[in-house]
């Protein structure tokens, strides 16, 4: 069959968007990490204070960086997996520019203090409506592409993307229902306990359907493509896909243990969170077992190393998460830096790791040039890995210390650390090392940017994919 025409220019747009927003997310992340050690860094300008920059950091990382690469991958892989060009190039551009407009509005309104105050759903209502619109546009385009495909079977990566396409709007719309009180001010229609329940149903599933399922789809696409080896087990794919999407939705209330949310909801959230280990590890094992088939290449191929570390952190954080949702553990971990460490072991290790895999895979192919330097990719890999470890380990130690200091009582049953400032003081060192970890991760990212820019500037020089199944000549 003749190869259909694939539209690479839209994918290039998403790749550039991802790099720009990643830079914003990481720079702001490092700044606010150090603000928690040196409060003077907040300056006396409103726009640079922690409380306004934090939502900018999370939104840029999740919806700017990650989603851009999810879309890049979808626009690249879906037509190829279905052997058909994209249904509508026009809609793909409408999607892209409406998305860019959204993220720019986010980058302006959040530091200006306009927020719904719901974590990961901070954007005010006009931006929410814009998001709903381009999500519909994107869905039409993808489902029409699926409808007129030339390949009967849907590959497992597409299952995960379909789950993302249908779930996000449901979560997003229900959670964002609000009554406007002005152009950039609104109030949630839900109050108190109900609002909390719905917010974390959404909040946890943003983790599920923005940061897990599409990334698993990326793993299922890039890993076999890059190694030219089939996925280890289709059987595991089937079981872990259906159990993952079924169970994840229930886990939200583990964010609300020991709160006035009814006990039955808390218990459901806890039970299903613990059960989530099984499907999560199913995905991890499927990746690992595929990787073992190409294990000798792990020594020479930086992209494969990133997949290995990403899967490791996916496994670790999906073990840690269920543990933290057990009431007794949650009593120590909740509200502490441990949570922040947990989030970042997933976000930096798994999500950003797979995003880097996508970039190293896509950029040479999209610009038809060999990667400028494998060695720099290697440097990036080690800087990123060291950065994550610094970050996560310091947050583990600091977080547990924090939780234990809060509850420490002396022989008379009096609180051992009466004043809050005492505790803050002792956490300073861990938070400092967390900032250093972030700085390492950021420097690795900058190395990657240099590498990719050099690659892009060599555009058109020709790209030959290396067959990882064959022994490569030793590099000089």
């Amino acid at each position, binding site marked *: 069959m003749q190869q259909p025409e694939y539209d690479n220019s839209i994918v290039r747009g998403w790749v550039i968007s991802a790099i720009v927003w990643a830079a914003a997310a990481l720079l702001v992340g490092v700044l606010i990490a150090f603000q928690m050690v040196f*409060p003077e860094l907040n300056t*006396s300008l*409103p726009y640079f*204070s*922690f*409380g306004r920059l934090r*939502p900018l950091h999370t939104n840029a990382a999740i919806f700017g960086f990650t989603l851009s690469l999810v879309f890049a991958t979808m626009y690249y892989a879906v037509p190829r997996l279905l052997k058909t060009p994209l249904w509508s190039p026009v809609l793909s551009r409408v999607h892209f520019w409406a998305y860019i407009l959204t993220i720019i509005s986010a980058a302006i309104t959040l530091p200006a*203090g306009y*927020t719904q*105050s*719901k974590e990961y759903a901070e954007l005010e209502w006009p931006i929410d409506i814009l998001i709903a619109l381009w999500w519909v546009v994107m869905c039409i385009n993808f*489902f029409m592409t*699926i*409808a007129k*495909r030339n390949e009967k*079977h849907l590959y497992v990566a597409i*299952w995960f993307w*379909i*789950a993302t396409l*249908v779930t996000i709007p*449901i979560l997003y719309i*229900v959670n964002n229902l609000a*009554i*406007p*009180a*002005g152009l950039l*001010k609104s*109030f*949630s*229609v839900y*109050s*108190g*306990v109900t*609002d*909390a*329940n*719905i*917010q974390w*149903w959404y909040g946890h599933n943003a983790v599920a359907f923005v940061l897990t399922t599409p990334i698993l789809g990326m793993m299922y696409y890039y890993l076999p493509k890059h190694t030219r080896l089939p996925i280890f087990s289709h*059987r595991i794919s*089937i079981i872990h896909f*259906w159990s993952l999407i*079924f*169970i994840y*939705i*229930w886990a939200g*209330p583990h*964010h609300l243990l*020991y*709160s006035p949310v009814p006990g039955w*909801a808390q218990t*459901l*959230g806890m039970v299903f969170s613990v059960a989530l280990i099984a499907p999560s590890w199913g995905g991890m094992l499927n990746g690992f077992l595929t990787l073992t088939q190409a294990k000798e290449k792990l020594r020479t191929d930086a992209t494969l190393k990133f997949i290995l570390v990403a899967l490791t952190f996916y496994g670790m954080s999906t073990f840690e998460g269920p543990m933290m949702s057990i009431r007794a553990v949650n*009593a120590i971990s909740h*509200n502490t830096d441990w949570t922040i460490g947990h989030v970042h072991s997933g976000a930096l290790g798994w999500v950003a790791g797979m995003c880097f895999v996508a970039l190293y895979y896509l950029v040479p192919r999209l610009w038809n040039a060999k990667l400028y330097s494998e060695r720099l990719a290697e440097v990036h890999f080690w800087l990123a890995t060291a950065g994550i470890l610094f970050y996560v380990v310091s947050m583990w130690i600091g977080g547990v210390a924090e939780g234990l200091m*809060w*509850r420490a009582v002396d022989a008379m*049953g009096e609180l051992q650390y009466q004043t809050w*400032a005492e505790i*803050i003081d002792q956490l300073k060192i861990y938070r400092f090392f967390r900032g250093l970890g972030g700085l390492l991760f950021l420097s690795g990212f900058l190395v990657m940017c240099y590498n990719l820019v050099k690659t892009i500037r060599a555009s058109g020089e020709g790209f030959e994919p290396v067959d990882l199944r064959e022994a490569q000549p030793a590099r000089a």
Partner: protein
Amino acid sequence: MSESKIPKELTVYEKLSAKLDSKALRFTIFTTIAILIGGLVEIPPFFMMGQVQPTDQQKPYSALELAGRNVYQQEGCFYCHTQLIRPFKWETDRWDKARQYGPEPYSKAGEFAYDHPFLWGSKRTGPDLSHESTIRPSAAWHYDHLRNPRAAVSQSIMPAYPWLEKTPIDVAETLASMRALSVVGVPYSDAQISAAESELAGKTQADALVAYLLKLGRDSVAPQAASR
């Protein structure tokens, strides 16, 4: 993908899956059903139980306090301060040593009945603020602290908020806020809304935020403690 060399028996779910993944519409419908079940079990019961009733003494935020809550949201205070005391001795001891909130001084559902949105937070970098009105009843302390946290508590890592004292309250926005909240069920009367304008006249964002902080926990003080 390449054919496996060893022919293997397809299991039941593999046969099912092979059927399903060639029928995109059906696949999407089943996926949607799978993801809806959890939410359907956990969310509708909240509405079937009816609105959470406010505690007996709980009053809606006054215009100034509401403007303060808007400032609290604007500055993202909830990223570092929780407003939820869990039922542990070491939390209740820390934030209600004098037992002013009765024998069970942890957070109850009714206290949040007028909160759109909830502001419990998920990270406690600074202390919990649920009972701030009784822990730090001094408005002067709060003004100093907002202006320069290090002057009030030398080890504090809180940002300074010097602009709050210089920024007047957006009166129109606050009135619109009251109207919007009355749409979603907060009992503001027309008289209250029309009286709000004079209450807010000449006030700054710092005045509002301090008023809000001094409202936190005030209506939950146990009656006997309040009359003491």
